[in-house]
């Protein structure tokens, strides 16, 4: 038995989550008293994972796999899991991790827990904490099958360096027929995405108009942050739907979430409360968001935000 981690790369480069799932898998393997094997596909530099505790790295290089295909990848994971007698399979909770995990579960007749936020609290029975009720609660989920599949919620564990000496082994995988062809991919380049961002700056109806987003974008650019918005803002067409965060929009699990002119409806809070530190700037001292925040400023965004930008610029130049 072993722990198998799928460390995903895009255009040859590891996603940030690859280091987090590897760090996490290492700890899980220690708890289970077994070894960890990490699988990568078309990574330029698989040996980078040694730094996060990966001794044995298996790499698949195949020009047919430059675009992610869930059916093919789930089958490769099955092939490697069987070869390595893996009984715990760990993936991330990105778009591809969540796509592939249920397919792996069926391939391996495994119970699956998605959006897991912690190490197993018990290994026998195997009990693991995961988000539920749209992040308003957690469920401690017992997986009773021999093989277990886990997807780790982004930013819930962290990245830990743990340099080890190890090997990188090439695996020649069988590629199954998938019945799915990728036609095109549109991805914003050079802009921090909400999914990847350490810091998210988000604006609400309190900003009064889409034309007032200049200062939100400037604040985001000073912080290297992604921009987001509340549901009413995207409904009003002030900002694109892709920026809508909350229960029915994108979830946010950043280190820092700055909410400006957002009152904090329960559905909005559900989508953002996985963020570690929340700052709320709002004119209304009774705004429910203050109850969920770590730091709050009661004040007019049009006065506070430009000052904040100025102070952050000073801070950045002093700490550069």
């Amino acid at each position: 038995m072993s722990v198998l981690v799928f460390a995903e790369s895009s255009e040859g480069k590891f996603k940030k989550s690859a280091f987090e799932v590897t760090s996490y898998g290492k700890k899980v393997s220690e708890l289970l008293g077994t070894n960890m094997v990490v699988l990568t596909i078309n990574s330029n530099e698989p040996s980078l994972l040694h730094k996060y505790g990966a001794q044995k790295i298996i790499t698949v290089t195949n020009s047919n796999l430059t675009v992610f295909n869930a059916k093919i990848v789930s089958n490769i994971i099955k092939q490697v899991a069987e070869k390595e007698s893996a009984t715990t399979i760990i993936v991330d909770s990105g778009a591809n991790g969540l796509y592939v995990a249920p397919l792996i579960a069926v391939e391996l007749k495994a119970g699956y827990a998605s959006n897991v936020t912690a190490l197993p609290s018990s290994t026998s029975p195997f009990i693991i904490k995961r988000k539920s009720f749209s992040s308003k609660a957690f469920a401690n989920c017992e997986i009773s099958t021999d093989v277990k599949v886990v997807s780790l919620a982004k930013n819930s564990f962290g990245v830990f360096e743990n340099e080890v000496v190890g090997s990188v082994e090439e695996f020649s995988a069988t590629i199954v027929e998938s019945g799915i062809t990728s036609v095109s991919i549109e991805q914003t380049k050079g802009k921090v995405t909400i999914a990847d961002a350490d810091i998210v700056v988000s604006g609400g109806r309190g900003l009064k108009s889409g034309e007032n987003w200049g200062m939100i974008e400037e604040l985001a650019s000073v912080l290297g942050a992604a921009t987001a918005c509340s549901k009413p803002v995207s409904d009003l067409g002030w900002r694109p739907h892709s920026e809508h965060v909350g229960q029915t929009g994108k979830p946010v699990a950043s280190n820092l979430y700055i909410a400006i002119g957002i009152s904090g409806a329960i559905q909005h809070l559900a989508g953002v409360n996985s963020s570690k530190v929340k700052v709320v700037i709002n004119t209304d001292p009774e705004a429910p968001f203050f109850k969920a925040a770590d730091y709050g400023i009661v004040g007019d965004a049009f006065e506070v935000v430009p000052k904040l930008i100025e102070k952050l610029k000073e801070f950045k130049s002093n700490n550069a």
Partner: protein
Amino acid sequence: MISMKILVCISHVPDTTSKINFTENNTKFDNNGVQFVINPYDEFALTRAMWFKEKQGATVTVINVGNASTEPTLRKALAIGADDAIRVNCEATDGFAVAKEIASVIKNGGYNLVLAGKESSDYNGAMVPGMVASLVDFSFINACIGLEIEGEKATASREIDGGKEVISTSLPLVIAGQKGLVEEKDLRIPNMRGIMMARQKPLNVVEPVNSENATAIASFEKLETKSSCKMIDASNVEELVHLLHTEAKVI
């Protein structure tokens, strides 16, 4: 031309504004005073199905795996316009078991397009559609934000981290949808005529194939309540920068 026989998976979930509480030593969801609705993600799937019914002559069956208490939610889906409903008569406590029940109905019913929400807003398992696809060996698109069908050919788009991917595939197909599959403003709600008609539509109760559970919920936890928010004066913004750096250590 092949006819589209659609099965829409409907989860019966607490209204999104519900207070979340637990009973029996935090092992059961407290549904006292809670109103149940069609899972918001499933509404996008159902509305898209109605579109295929009206424009392309598809038939639409809705399915729920659950006990009799979920029937009002299935009736609501019938009132929105589904032709008939199936309830698999068992408590849904594990995504894998639910997927096996739905897979069995698909095999017996000859459906060629299965539409579902990408997850339920209560347990957020995000697994049933993918598992169903894998069990019946249909193609599968997760987090689907657009779907067109022409004969057997399907063009779908899915959300990826930071963008979207357009995919070409074919029926039979399982779709796990979300906002974008239809726009939120286009979501259907039942009208009076629909509600009246729904009473006459068939709601068939079928017995489960009794799939074994792969997971169980040992207990629930509510979110820890935040230690109180540290308020900073609007004239003292540098204090916020200082705290974010030295105390929160996020900048």
